[in-house]
């Protein structure tokens, strides 16, 4: 029963990791670069919600969309300042620029909010209830549901709508996309902003169940990165699978080891993938789309 309990917990964490991973994958497919500032966008989402809801007293359902918009705006600024000027630079330069952005954003957050931990207001309730011997927390259940729903929605958008298809076309062949009349510039920016929105939502969902201070972006960014790499940097399904495997692995580590091992799992995963399939991390390769 304890294992089942941890599996449920792992699924909940994992679906959030999957959302963060999806942000990495979207940007990687479109821009050919891993955006290490993705975790920071999650943090921006969480902090925006904290300010709007806890400080300014906006009701949570109004504050969430506004916080998402704020994060999309921040995402746009990041794209404009650090991605666009380096579009033709080599991969390493671009990668390092994203690390620079992440350090910069993290320290701005630290200047504003200090280094203390915040208790994040629960969004969906944190009063546990019992089903048989299982103890369930509404926030965790909602996190799972929202994670899956967003991935499904995104998948639908990318596969079924004209704009979604044009974004995938752009990611696959920019020049051919131009020949179709697709505005490649707008398509790339759109992809970035959507990835930012996903990250922000992930940040808001995970902040109530995590240690939450200015550094949350680094933590959640690493998990999302590990999940994305584990999923093969592939579209929706890969990222989600990677996230859930990582989430469950972390929670099982608690059962069979100690909670101290939990945070090591993401690094172990990264380590293993780097040893076993190093080529997938740095070079953008076209892969089979599995859905």
């Amino acid at each position, binding site marked *: 029963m304890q294992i089942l309990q941890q599996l449920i917990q792992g699924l909940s964490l994992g679906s959030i990791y999957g959302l963060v991973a999806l942000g990495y994958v979207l940007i990687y497919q479109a821009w050919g670069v891993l955006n290490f500032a993705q975790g920071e966008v999650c943090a921006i989402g969480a902090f925006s919600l904290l300010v709007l809801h806890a400080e300014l007293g906006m009701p949570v359902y109004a504050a969430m969309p506004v916080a998402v918009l704020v994060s999309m705006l921040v995402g746009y600024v990041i794209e404009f300042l650090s991605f666009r000027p380096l579009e033709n630079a080599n991969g390493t330069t671009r990668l390092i620029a994203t690390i620079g952005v992440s350090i910069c954003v993290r320290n701005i957050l630290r200047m504003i909010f200090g280094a203390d931990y915040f208790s994040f207001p629960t969004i969906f309730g944190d009063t546990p209830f019992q089903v048989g011997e299982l103890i369930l927390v509404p926030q965790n259940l909602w996190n799972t549901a929202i994670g899956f729903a967003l991935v499904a929605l995104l998948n639908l958008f990318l596969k079924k709508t004209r704009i979604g298809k044009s974004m*995938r076309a752009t990611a696959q062949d920019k020049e051919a996309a131009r*020949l179709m*009349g697709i505005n490649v510039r707008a398509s790339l920016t759109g992809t970035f902003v959507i990835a930012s929105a996903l990250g922000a939502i992930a940040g808001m969902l995970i902040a109530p169940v995590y240690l939450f201070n200015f550094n949350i972006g680094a933590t959640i960014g690493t998990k999302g990165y590990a999940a994305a790499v584990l999923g093969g940097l592939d579209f929706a399904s890969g990222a989600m699978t990677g996230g859930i495997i990582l989430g469950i692995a972390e929670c099982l580590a608690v059962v069979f080891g100690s909670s101290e091992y939990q945070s090591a799992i993401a690094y172990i995963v990264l380590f293993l993938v780097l040893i076993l399939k190093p080529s997938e991390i740095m070079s953008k390769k076209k892969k089979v789309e599995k859905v």
Partner: protein
Amino acid sequence: MLQLNNVQVAYGNIEVLHKISIEVKKGEIVTIIGANGAGKTTALRSVAGLLPKKKGSQILFDGIDITNMGAEKIVAEGMALSPEGRHIFPELTVEDNLEMGAYLRHKDKAGVAKDMKEVFEMFPRLEERRRQLGKTLSGGEQQMLAIARALMSSPKLLMLDEPSTGLAPLVIKEIFRIVKKLNQTRGLTVLLVEQNAKMALGVADRGYVLKNGEIVKSDTGENLLNDDSIRAAYLGGR
């Protein structure tokens, strides 16, 4: 319909096209032939708006100056390029590839559906494979898809860059037959770039010979086919 006046293109400091002038009239099939590296692909790419042109160049399309227009704008004016190397979208289905070809016609759903049907009649193989990903097609099928995708924008001028590359003779024949048919039945204007000069001159009304970035000769397709110097240089002698 299309007029290139003194078009100059350079990659960095190296000029690849030296003031070339080409004209394509409405309803014609015009071909540009020449050896590898003569600048044929560069010519088509610069017309399509994928390359910047040097000062003094001028490209007119259907009365509009498109010299400095970007590729995504030029499509809307009624020009489509089936690029060298096909450049189909590998991870999109055949159907989605075609839909992307009609990307700018989203308000004309009925017209797009009709063209999709026509394209499938023209290339039955594509219809059989409509739900397959682009990358799973054979080379010939990919070439057909590239042409079909270009047609989906409902162009006035269709530009084809090396459609015969890497294909079996029978497939090449089929593709040229379809191009000719499009020209005859629909009055589609075609600008064709080919290394396979014999095939190209066989279908073309007129041809230009490009050598080291300059037009060295232009005549009707038939005359070029029978021209001794052309035969020696581009048609395998005798």
